[in-house]
């Protein structure tokens, strides 16, 4: 997704390994981030995403590998080079916000500028500018211990961008906010990041958040990268069982490929004997025994173009508001189906399940 191919990546991580004693937290991670890009590290807790981020910030000492920031090597296992955090010039928003309770909002935001020995007037104008961006200008003189969670979050963001860093690291910045505020801040953060063109690496365990704000998503599991891709890629073409399961709601349908189908599809027979047409995987070597099918991509009733149509019975209906989740009995067991609230079916009614072969991803 390099928007300007002439621009070298802002962050480059190669073969990164971080060990704590015998435990390997990060195991050979490798990726690069182009200028202006927002990339998320997504994964369950303990997958090594935060450790990777902290290693880039210089807060964690890796065991081996290379980290380059703005084309400058800041860590190299082979060269035994490890530039301290304060000399790396990146900025970071912490999960706990890390707002210093003994300083006012102004002093918190001004910290990075004062460290850089900017003249007083310039410090003041910069602080005013960023506080304005996060709509906290009215709070400048407040003691920061008197702020709410959402306000602390805004101050933390303002502090991180105040000294105009070109790389900002976000360590689960929204995880301590309630759901509604989190959704609002997500939009604001993305706006801010686009407006200032800040290269960002963003750690989260919330797949919805990752899909919503990222240019690219890196899914991690057990210290390794499972898949790197755009949010659409990750959702529509999960590369592994783990990604399909962790991101979004997917049905895992076991079975086997029985041969060629029409129009370049493959024929797939599920356990229980349903015959499906599925898309041919990009990598022809995939010898999968399971397909992943997103619950949102299954329709009720025969639709034009959909080449799969299987009869089923609605077992259970759960109304979620924004969608309805159905549990449908079908030959291969049970299937989760999500439909908009306009498509209301009673429990026990017979339906035809139809879905496109391209949405059946062989794993």
């Amino acid at each position, binding site marked *: 997704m390099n928007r300007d191919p002439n621009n070298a990546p802002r962050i480059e991580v190669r073969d990164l390994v971080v060990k704590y004693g015998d435990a390997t937290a990060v195991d050979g991670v490798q990726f690069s981030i182009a200028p202006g890009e927002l990339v998320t590290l997504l994964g369950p807790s303990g997958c090594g995403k935060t450790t990777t981020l902290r290693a880039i*910030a*210089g*807060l964690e*000492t890796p065991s081996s590998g290379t980290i380059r920031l703005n084309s400058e090597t800041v860590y190299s296992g082979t060269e035994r080079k*490890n530039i*301290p*955090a*304060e*000399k*790396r*010039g*990146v*900025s*970071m928003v*912490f*999960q*706990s916000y*890390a707002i*210093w*309770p*003994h300083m006012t909002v102004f002093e918190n935001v001004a*910290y*990075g500028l004062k*460290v*850089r020995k900017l003249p007083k007037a310039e410090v003041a104008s910069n602080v005013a500018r960023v506080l304005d961006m996060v709509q906290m200008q009215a709070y400048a003189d407040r003691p920061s*211990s008197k702020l709410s969670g959402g306000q602390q979050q805004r101050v933390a963001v303002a*502090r991180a961008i105040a*000294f105009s860093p070109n790389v900002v*690291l976000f360590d689960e910045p929204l995880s301590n906010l309630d759901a509604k505020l989190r959704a609002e801040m997500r939009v604001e953060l993305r706006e801010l990041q686009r407006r200032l063109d800040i290269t960002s690496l963003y750690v989260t365990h919330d797949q919805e958040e990752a899909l919503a704000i990222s240019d690219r998503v890196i899914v991690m599991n057990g210290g390794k990268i499972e898949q790197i891709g755009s949010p659409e890629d990750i959702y529509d073409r999960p590369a592994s069982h783990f990604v399909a399961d962790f991101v979004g709601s997917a049905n895992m349908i076991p079975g086997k490929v029985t041969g060629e189908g029409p129009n370049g599809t493959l024929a797939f027979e599920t356990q229980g004997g349903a015959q499906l047409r599925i898309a041919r995987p990009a990598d022809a070597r995939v010898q999968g025994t399971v397909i992943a099918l997103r619950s949102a991509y299954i329709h009720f009733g025969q639709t034009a173009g959909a080449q799969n149509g299987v009869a089923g019975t609605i077992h259970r209906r759960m109304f979620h508001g924004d969608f309805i989740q159905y549990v449908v009995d079908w030959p291969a067991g049970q299937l989760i189906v999500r439909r908009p609230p306009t498509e209301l079916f009673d429990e026990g009614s017979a339906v035809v399940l139809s879905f496109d072969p391209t949405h059946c991803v062989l794993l």
Partner: protein
Amino acid sequence: MRVPGFQTWIMMLLLLVCGALVIYPLAFLIVESINVGDPQIFPPEEYGLGNYANLYEDSKIITNTLLVACISTVFAVIFGFIQAWILTRTAIPGRERLERLMELPYYMTPLIGALAWGVLLGPKTGLINQLWRSTGIESDAFNIYTPWGIAWVMALFEGTVAFVMISASMKSMDPSLEESSRVLGASKLRTMLKITIPLVTPGILSATIFVFAEMLGSFAAAFVLGIPGRFYVVTTSIWQATLSYPPDYGRAAALGLSLFGAMVITLGLARLIMRHGTYTTITGKAFRPRPMDVGAMKYPLMSLAWGYIFVAVVLPLAALTLTSFQQFATVIIPQMKFTLANFETAVQMGSLGPAFINSMTLGVSVATIGVPIIGIMAWIIYRSTMPGRVVMEYVAMVPAAVPRLVFGLGLLWAWINIPIPLYGTLWLLGIAYFTVFLPLGLRTIAGVVLQVDKSLEECARVCGASWTHQMRTVTLPLLRPGLIAAWLLLFIASVRELGASVFLMGPHSKVIGPSIVNSWLTASSELSAAMALIQTVMVFIAVAIMFRVARRMGGATE
């Protein structure tokens, strides 16, 4: 490397100095305990286990020690449990104030307690016994110069320790554990028997063992109340063996090391129970359990809670005050003759005046030098990733298991055998205080260091601050209230120190604690009461400042 080289040097230096301070006296003790030749010659001419073998012969001392320790542990745990239950689980009026006052008995010290109860319940002359006899009865109400008396005084003091430990385990219990029992249909009583008590048992058990270990090594009460009746426990026997003529250092060292061993085992046991006996549902999180509505019982319970404060603090202080202002202590009003002479004597008398000045000097300098050093150690142990930090923590915590008296003995023996003329000077006392209070200082500062979220420091680094800049602008300002509290605690501990001082005080380096004891043994109880009151006032002023700082600290973090 992120950690600059000079940090490693500082760590090595601290480890070396503290290691020497802690281990050196203990090593001398070990050598001396196996010296069966002339006990005054160093290095020993003859080695053997004779000193240990001799300990079996006077098993009386050991049974005495165990007797006092057992009685007072039982009482202390009962006091602590009742106070903890009333103050954390019942809805009595004025709970918060009472909870704060519960710290006071701890600052009273066993020495002050023993003097005060000696004044109250000494045979014939004790104030309560005077009252008792004034009714015409020809015997005493109670004689405090007995094992029961020693145990009583110690129990009042250790009751606070038990209270702190037991109430912590009560507070850390999630109230929903009890609520779910009630919801499932169990009665209040059944819930208490089946849920509450099993959950707090590990806390009570470890408090019991901890208090018992402290009792084994306690000195002041057994000294003040035991010596007149020739009732000796291990600590007072060490004192006797060291200061009698000719001194039997070998015997003292063997006694001291046996005591040290016993304490290490019991404290280890307490830790083991604390770690493995507690249930995972009891988290580090503090809950405020919904207090039980006790109805009409609330006034009896409230008076019970106040009763402890009265008996442990108010009554002893009142007795000391009444005594110190009289020529001859009495409660018979027509016979009272009030005077300020005792206080005049206390501050003027030949060597006693300097004792107060020396103690103040020591308190201020030990605290001032100790806090920065221990602060750096706490930061290294709990914040850095340096490989030596675990060793450093162990070294710094060793003195916690050594009775201060035994440590004093080790230092005495170590420094009279070294050509550096430190023995008999304030320097040696200063070194001793710093070493024995290492665990106290480290625990206090560590509590604050751990409270400060690590990301507050990391954020400063990411913002571009160097290590020194981060320390100056973020770490130290955040730690300041905790450091002030640690300073005051070290000051208080130094001013009231007795155990290590008895052996290390010289004719030109007198300090308060031993001076009070000497005056009690050789001069009048009225004079001793005046001295004890002055010491208590010094300590309470420091405590008052500490409470104020603590309150401001509480306000800042909210």
